[in-house]
């Protein structure tokens, strides 16, 4: 019965945000290390419990001093020393060598309350984006992790990590995703009222397709038509904080919106991207995400907000 109930927990080991279902070299390494540790710990636990039960069940009898010494020194000193030394050796050997970077793609991720500022750097190119991480399968990627305000932690369980983002420091992380697919990452260090709403989608592209994506992301906004939504976006001062490449490049306080329509989630994983979610968000961000830096626009008529939402969704 207990075993059956435990079995029910097994499906939770998979899914887009699981370190037990690895999709990257480092996550695989951590995964197999974890498996080895669990099996090893289970074995040692079983041995210990077996010995203890044996000692309780057996009639007390006399043992030679030699036997007792062997048991105590062997089981209490030699085995843990060798076991821990072996673990340390394996652990140290599995530390990655980051003295040089094999990656020619660097992704700068800057934690903010409560979203992710992302910039892709390859050669001389630097492409600004936000709240979504795109990766090429089979290629090492260097993450440069910084924070704007408090301690955040950048974690993509299926790919690898995590690594803290510390104020005043630059932390590095080199990961190699292996399996194309869509995963989920999250902030893993409590950072404020909306810490739980600080997540992101991870898209691992099959080899070759990543370059197409990067070209698309580099290009200016896809919709350059002079729509009413665009006029309202500019007239209401959205551009004081949000950049849209090719249309308006002024403020940089909030997330870059050049390709916001193609993102899977809104407000760093707070809601799936949709017209309704976007409208709710613009009207009153605090209602969806307490502590968010964006002001409410409850004073705008609903049709203006809808027009702005439609304009943003058209930016793919």
């Amino acid at each position, binding site marked *: 019965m207990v075993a059956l109930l435990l079995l029910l927990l097994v499906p939770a080991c998979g899914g887009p945000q699981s370190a037990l279902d690895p999709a990257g070299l480092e996550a695989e390494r951590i995964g197999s290390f974890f498996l080895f540790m669990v099996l090893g710990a289970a074995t040692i636990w079983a041995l210990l419990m077996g010995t203890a039960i044996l000692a309780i069940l057996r009639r007390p009898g006399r043992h030679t001093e030699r036997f007792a010494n062997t048991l105590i020194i062997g089981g209490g000193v030699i085995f843990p020393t060798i076991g821990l030394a072996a673990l340390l050796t394996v652990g140290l050997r599995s530390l990655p060598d980051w003295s040089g970077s094999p990656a020619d793609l660097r992704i700068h991720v800057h934690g903010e309350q409560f979203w992710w500022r992302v910039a892709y750097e390859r050669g001389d190119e630097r492409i600004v984006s936000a709240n979504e991480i795109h990766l090429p399968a089979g290629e090492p990627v260097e993450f440069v992790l910084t924070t*704007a305000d408090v301690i955040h932690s950048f974690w993509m369980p299926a790919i690898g990590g995590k690594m803290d983002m510390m104020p005043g420091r630059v932390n590095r992380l080199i990961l190699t995703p292996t399996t194309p697919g869509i995963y989920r990452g999250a902030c893993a260090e409590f950072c404020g009222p909306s810490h739980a709403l600080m997540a992101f989608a991870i898209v691992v592209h099959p080899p070759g397709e990543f370059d197409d994506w990067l070209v698309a992301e580099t290009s200016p906004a896809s919709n350059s038509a002079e729509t009413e939504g665009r006029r309202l976006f*500019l*007239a*209401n*001062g*959205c*551009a*004081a*904080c949000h950049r849209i490449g090719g249309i*308006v490049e*002024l*403020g*940089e*306080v909030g997330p870059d919106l050049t390709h916001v329509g193609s993102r899977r989630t809104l407000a760093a994983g707070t809601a799936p991207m949709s017209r309704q979610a976007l409208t709710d968000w613009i009207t009153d961000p605090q209602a969806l995400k307490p502590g968010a*830096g964006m*002001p*409410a626009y409850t*004073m705008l008529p609903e049709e203006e907000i809808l027009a702005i939402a439609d304009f943003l969704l058209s930016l793919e």
Partner: protein
Amino acid sequence: MTIRLRHLVHVLAALVVTCAAVFWSGIISISASSGHWTITDLILHTAMRRSVIFHARNVTVPPDLEHPGLVRRGAAHFESGCAPCHGSPVRPRSTVPQEMTPPPPPLAPVIGQWEPQHLFWIVKHGVKFTGMPAWPALSRDDEVWAITAFLLAMPEMDGATYTALAYGAAEPPARGAGGLSLVTRPPLENCVRCHDHEGKGDPNGAFPRLDIQTEIYLRKALEAYHRGQRASGIMESMVAPLTEAETTALAAHYARKAPDAPAPVDPASLPPDILRRGKEIAQIGIPERNVASCLGCHGPKTGRPEFPQIHGQYREYIEIQLNLFVSGTRSSGADFEHLMSMATHALDPADIEAVAAWFASRPPSADN
């Protein structure tokens, strides 16, 4: 006989009963016509003096109280708000307030008895048991300092200078009128005293220019003052008597009168690093401190008509308003003001100086 405790208790009780009887009988006259006894006057005045000195002990005096813009701002309000009771360099006190007890004193002879921080405190908080009211907008220390600056300059001021400061381009009232009669003037005549016929404001930055603003912005600003949502002791008291129709007419009068006026400050007269810093903040803001780009809303060609034009506005006015936004004083007036408090809250005084200087050095017709 020995005085025992119960004797004292009896005397005390008799005293309390007598006092209550006197208090309740109404025998004490509160008539203003009888004035105070000399001893009452002395006690009240000393208490007032000691209290002002005590409570003003932590007030910091700003360094530039001689600034002509500050003196002018104070003079214009003094004429409508203070002169009716206290008199002015051109006009003695009206007769009605002189019958108050205590009578409001003519100020020129007494100003020298106070330090600037004491004058500030009295103007800001008023004085209990006298007719002296508190400042209508307690969050506007800048305005109270303007009055203080004028008070300090007043004892030496001649009548012609005073009239020029208090009336600007407007026609001063005929001899014998003035004071309380200001409320019966056509509203525009009072606007003109500070903002000029054409809305040019004051070149020393005492008053903002209105000739670059849209009609809807001006109307909404007047309405916000009228409803008490935008704090200003000066503007709230000027706008209070206006009818809706008058508000609309005034906004229409000043709207976009001179959209092509030249910049009030010559960019060449400003240090290049201030100009560069101001331009940078205006264009991209300060992203690392969550300060938004000014031009995102205040680009003249794109922003809503509710947003004020600040290209070509006086730097003193921009600085004051930014300080009000940063301190959170100005945050709930018109529909869009909360955007400004969020966009500017991390600006420091050097940023404010730079960005105000840059905007003041731009012609109002500038594209961005």
